[in-house]
């Protein structure tokens, strides 16, 4: 079964000027990501990479076409059902980490446990998650006391709390220096080896090199990257 299946995906934005034509972001994207696959999507700014992740994650519902994630057609799902899908089955990682400043690292990792029915055995899992990303000794630290790389590790532990089968990452190394970014990429490789499906949008070749498949979003269409295809 495919983890993600997109058919004829289009996204329309309002016209820039009153009375103008609506802007079409894509020409109808088709994409299938198999379970356990690590797919990187490259593209320049404004091509809709983040929008693609938001649609796959059920955060953006204003689109045309068909989106099926983990066997669930998103079009017919209620807001609550989409929230439940994100809560249990999808982990998000953002470029700017998006940790809550008032919570400690451990509490940030536990954030998904605050919602819905919570996460079983959440605290133990959170501590294990922090240990896995090398942050066990920083559990009580607040985000302001952490470096960029450390914050991203905490964000990854948060995304993994519910042990989702699908991770969506939006420029995960965009705010990190080269060395720290390598550490994050190494983590992604580990997760890929563990069988988690990863869809990562990036403009960094080093991230794409870790992926099992690389696609380029250009001129409203997805193209395979001939440089790296199948090289992972």
């Amino acid at each position, binding site marked *: 079964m495919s983890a993600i299946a997109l058919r004829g995906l289009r996204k329309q934005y309002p016209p820039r000027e009153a009375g103008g034509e609506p802007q079409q972001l894509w020409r109808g994207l088709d994409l299938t990501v198999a379970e356990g696959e690590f797919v990187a999507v490259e593209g320049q700014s404004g091509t809709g990479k*983040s*929008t693609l992740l*938001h*649609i796959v*994650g059920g*955060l*953006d519902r204003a689109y045309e076409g068909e989106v099926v994630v983990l066997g669930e057609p998103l079009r017919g799902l209620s*807001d*609550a059902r989409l*929230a*439940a899908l*994100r*809560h*249990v089955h999808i982990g*998000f990682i*953002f470029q700017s980490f*998006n940790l*809550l*400043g*008032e*919570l400690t690292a451990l*509490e940030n990792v536990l*954030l*998904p*446990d*605050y*919602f*819905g029915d*919570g996460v079983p055995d959440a605290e133990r899992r959170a501590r294990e998650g922090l240990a896995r990303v090398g942050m066990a000794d920083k559990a009580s630290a607040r985000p302001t006391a952490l470096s960029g790389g450390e914050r991203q590790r905490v964000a990854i532990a*948060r995304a993994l709390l*519910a042990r989702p089968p699908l991770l969506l990452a939006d420029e995960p190394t965009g705010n990190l220096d080269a060395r720290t970014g390598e550490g994050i990429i190494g983590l992604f490789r580990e997760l890929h080896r563990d069988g988690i499906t990863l869809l990562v949008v990036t403009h960094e070749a080093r991230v794409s090199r870790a992926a099992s498949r690389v696609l380029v979003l250009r001129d409203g269409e997805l193209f395979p990257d001939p440089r790296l295809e199948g090289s992972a």
Partner: protein
Amino acid sequence: MRPARLWKLANANLSRELGALAVSAGGVALGIGCLVFFLALGRGLQRVVRDVFPVSARELEVVVPQVGVGSLFGEVHLDDAALARLRQIPGVSEAFPRLALRVPAVTRYHGLFFGREIHMGLEVLGIGVSPELFGTDARLPFADAGEGAPIPVVVNRRLLEIYNKVFAPQRGLPQLTDSMLVGFQFPIELGRSYVAAKTLPGTYEAALRLAGFSDRAPLAGLSMPIETIRRINQRFGQDATGYSSVLLRAQRSEQVGEIAASVKRMGFDLDESERNRALQIGAAVELVTLALSLLAALITALAAVNIAQAFHAEVRERTREIGVMRAVGATRGDVATLILAEAAVTGLIGGALGVLLARLGGFLVDRVAHKGLPEFPFKPDSFFDFHPGHVLLGVAIALAAALAGAFFPARSAAALDPARALTES
């Protein structure tokens, strides 16, 4: 969203916005403080009014009309037959006849009065009442003991208050309690008047013995057993068959109106002078309390508007954070609940502070009144009566105001497009 987690997240958010929390909760505290303060003041003043004019909502005093068709024809008498008919009015549980002493009387006292030598002469107004009227207020037997025996009297408790607060301080007399006075005997001369300067034939002396104090005794005069008054009136050749008035007690206060109508249909009138005075003063106090409470409610409403503005600003500032929560599984309901929980905490803190402010204000006013105001009859220890219901009402209104203020911000937070929220800078 589980309550413990909700509390933790709300607490974390509030701790970030301590300044805004202080302003929002402070506004609520001011409004609720004023509300509880004025409600307690109104209730305290009502209590004073009840002390000064103790009227029962279940009682009516029936009198013979001074000018009326019935009285002109001599048809209306408050006699035993009329008393029986009054007792049969539906809703009447008890009827207590009263009979005025129809001869003048004076009391003279020369001698020691609780350690002070006094010389006193007073006109006495005597009212005969049924012994059952006072119940346990009469601490000595309250019944006619016949010629030669001391006459038991019951005095309105307010007279003792007036004596202690006005009469005694001005004359250097001792402060007295009802326990000290019960059993005290003083002379009465029946058939004589200082004011009218006349002495009736058959004037004689007797002794009065204080049997107790009661709010149910008429303020002007000394209450004596009705049989004693009848005997004295007969002795001086006065009409001893009728009554001066009859006190009716209703089974329930809401029956009083119907009973009053029945009494008037029978040709009698109602003496409502004291009752009306008490009701008018009580109504004035209620009106002022209501006006001040409305002012306090307005302050609370302004606090709710302030909360709305604060939470709107907070939602704007936390747009991205709300997007993150949606991304990790929060529903629209979770987001709204979180905002409302923060508002609830703000309201509860404001409400609790408001109640404390009101208590503190009441304490200070009482202190100033205690030291600054001269002693006067019925001066209360406290002008405030903080009823637990008012405290609960204050906290509940604070909670409601905060939730009302945060309602629209919570709704707009829940309606945020999570994808757009995540891209907010």
